């Protein structure tokens, strides 16, 4: 911590100038176009890179100092968690499902973001931008590592954590996040900044981290609170970078507006689909819930998003296309996806369960217009069906997937929650299916990109698996009877309850 000294220090603005822009130089023996070959082709026009400035004015020396402090705090708590059987302090082992989904779907996204920022930091000519991207690249790899490290303590005791890297690539429900990040990394540097810096970090990351980490705190998971807040302390800087970057593009040239708006439209919708996984964690997987997905959306989606787009209106930016459809879908998406995850639980590397009566009452209170009317009857029927047949309800019909977001096409028509939304496009004689107008728009704007999507379900029917479900389980590193299935009969539950009983008695 700083002590009062008499020495005259540089002002923050001067220091920022010295440590960023003054580190740059004009190339002499190669042209600027040769050194930075990727900044033209997306059509974004930049006239003066020096106009870009990090509002925090964070320089590399200060960055290292504060990051080191964050790491010290993080590892002190992770060590304490491991040394004190922290895994037995969680509410109950159902909570672990949220962690498994996080590790399989989200942490690899941090690593992808690291690679992306390392790349765009090289591709942008502005020194201020390069420094900020370099910091974010280091942040993102730190997040991936601290998350994996923190959750490795759970892997010592529980199933489903052991193959997150392979499952990121191969299992079906993670592909919504994988395709999001692959799409961003396959885009040009400016689009990448809108995808990750703006849409993901600014518009959506609060919906992922803040309620999730508060949820972890509610459920006694000190390790996750710690990596979450440690990561989130960087996010404020990332969000600010994303917002600065969009303002910078819009201020540099009026021709940039339609390109930027199209990217906002696209990445908002892609982000909403990734968040559907988060919605199930918030509404269903946390034994002790902090707020509903709807309540989180009201704060971080509506209130914050409205403020943001009102602010950006001065540049001619309007709220993302399909915002109204997202708003309508908020009251449905967690229920629709959770019912899907439950019936395909033979193929999930985490456990699911039918919500208890008490949980259903909570959901009815949080979703007064939708839960009792549309979703409770389905859960009740599943419960009855299981009692009658004496077996868990599984749907061995493999779902149709969306060519864009890659989720099963479980979402319903706008205005009619009783009917699946069917959309398709034909491109060069091939038929492609979508879950929504938003996803169809993304495809129709760049069909050449999305025809290449590797979709897990059609993939299972091709080489090398040719439709063999058992071979598929081996291929996705899913241990049948251990990693998958209903929580009620799981080894995780049995172990947790046994160890907790041992920890609180002398038997």
């Amino acid at each position, binding site marked *: *911590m*700083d*002590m*009062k000294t008499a020495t005259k*220090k540089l*002002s*923050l*603005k001067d220091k920022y100038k010295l440590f960023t822009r003054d580190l740059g130089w004009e190339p002499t023996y190669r042209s600027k176009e040769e050194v930075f070959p990727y900044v033209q082709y997306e059509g974004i026009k930049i006239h003066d890179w020096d106009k870009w400035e990090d*509002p*925090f*004015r*964070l320089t590399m020396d*200060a960055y290292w100092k*504060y990051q080191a*402090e*964050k790491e010290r*705090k993080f590892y002190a708590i992770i060590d304490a968690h491991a040394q004190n059987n922290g895994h037995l302090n969680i509410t109950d082992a159902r909570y672990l499902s949220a962690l498994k989904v996080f590790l399989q779907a989200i942490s690899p996204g941090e690593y992808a973001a690291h690679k992306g920022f390392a790349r765009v930091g090289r591709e942008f000519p502005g020194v201020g931008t390069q420094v900020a991207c370099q910091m974010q690249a280091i942040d993102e790899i730190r997040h991936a590592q601290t998350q994996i490290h923190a959750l490795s303590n759970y892997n010592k005791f529980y199933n489903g954590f052991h193959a997150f890297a392979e499952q990121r690539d191969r299992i079906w429900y993670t592909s919504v996040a994988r395709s999001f990040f692959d799409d961003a990394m396959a885009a040009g540097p400016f689009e990448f900044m809108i995808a990750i810096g703006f849409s993901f970090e600014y518009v959506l*990351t*609060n919906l992922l*981290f*803040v309620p999730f*980490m*508060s949820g972890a*705190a*509610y459920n006694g998971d000190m390790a996750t*609170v710690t990596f979450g*807040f440690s990561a*989130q*302390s960087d*996010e*404020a*800087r990332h*969000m*600010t970078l994303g*917002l600065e970057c969009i303002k910078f593009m819009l201020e540099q040239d009026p021709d940039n507006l339609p390109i930027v708006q199209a990217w906002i439209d696209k990445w908002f919708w892609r982000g909403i689909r990734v968040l559907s996984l988060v919605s199930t964690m918030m509404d269903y997987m946390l034994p002790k819930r*902090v707020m509903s997905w709807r309540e989180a959306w009201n704060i971080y989606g509506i*209130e*914050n998003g*409205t*403020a*943001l787009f*009102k*602010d950006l209106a*001065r540049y001619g930016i309007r709220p993302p296309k399909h915002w109204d459809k997202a708003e309508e879908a908020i009251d449905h998406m967690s229920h629709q996806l959770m019912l899907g995850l439950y019936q395909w639980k033979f193929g999930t590397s985490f456990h699911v369960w039918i919500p208890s009566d008490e949980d259903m009452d909570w959901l009815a209170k949080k979703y007064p217009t939708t839960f009792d009317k549309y979703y409770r009857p389905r859960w009740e029927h599943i419960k009855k069906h299981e009692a009658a047949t004496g077996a868990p309800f599984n749907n061995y019909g493999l779902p149709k997937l969306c060519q864009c977001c890659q989720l099963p096409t479980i979402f319903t028509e706008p205005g009619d929650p009783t009917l699946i939304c069917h959309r398709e496009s034909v491109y060069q004689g091939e038929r492609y299916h979508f879950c929504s107008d938003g996803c169809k728009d993304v495809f129709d704007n760049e069909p050449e990109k999305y025809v290449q999507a590797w979709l897990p379900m059609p993939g299972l029917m091709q080489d090398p698996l040719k439709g063999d479900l058992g071979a598929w389980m081996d291929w996705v590193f899913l241990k049948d009877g251990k990693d998958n299935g209903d929580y009620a009969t799981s080894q995780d539950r049995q172990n947790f309850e046994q160890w907790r009983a041992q920890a609180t008695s002398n038997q």
Partner: protein
Amino acid sequence: MSTVFIALQANEDTRPIIEAIEIDNPNAVVNREPAMVKIDAPNRLVIRKDTIEEQLGRSFDLQELQINLITLSGNVDEDEDTLTLTWNS
């Protein structure tokens, strides 16, 4: 009117910072949530180094905020004396 906000981890480091923010922003609403404190304000929120130092009783570098920051909303401007969040609306 749009709401700007800043969220900080709830710990001993941030207690005097939150007190300082309350002093400098009479319109701010402090929400205490599990493990975090979220402070909302209409259109503008200012964080002053001087006020924090008075609460803390020692010298404070505003960039130390980075360690305990969780999230924020609004356009940021920071120099050595103040950090300001604003929405233009």
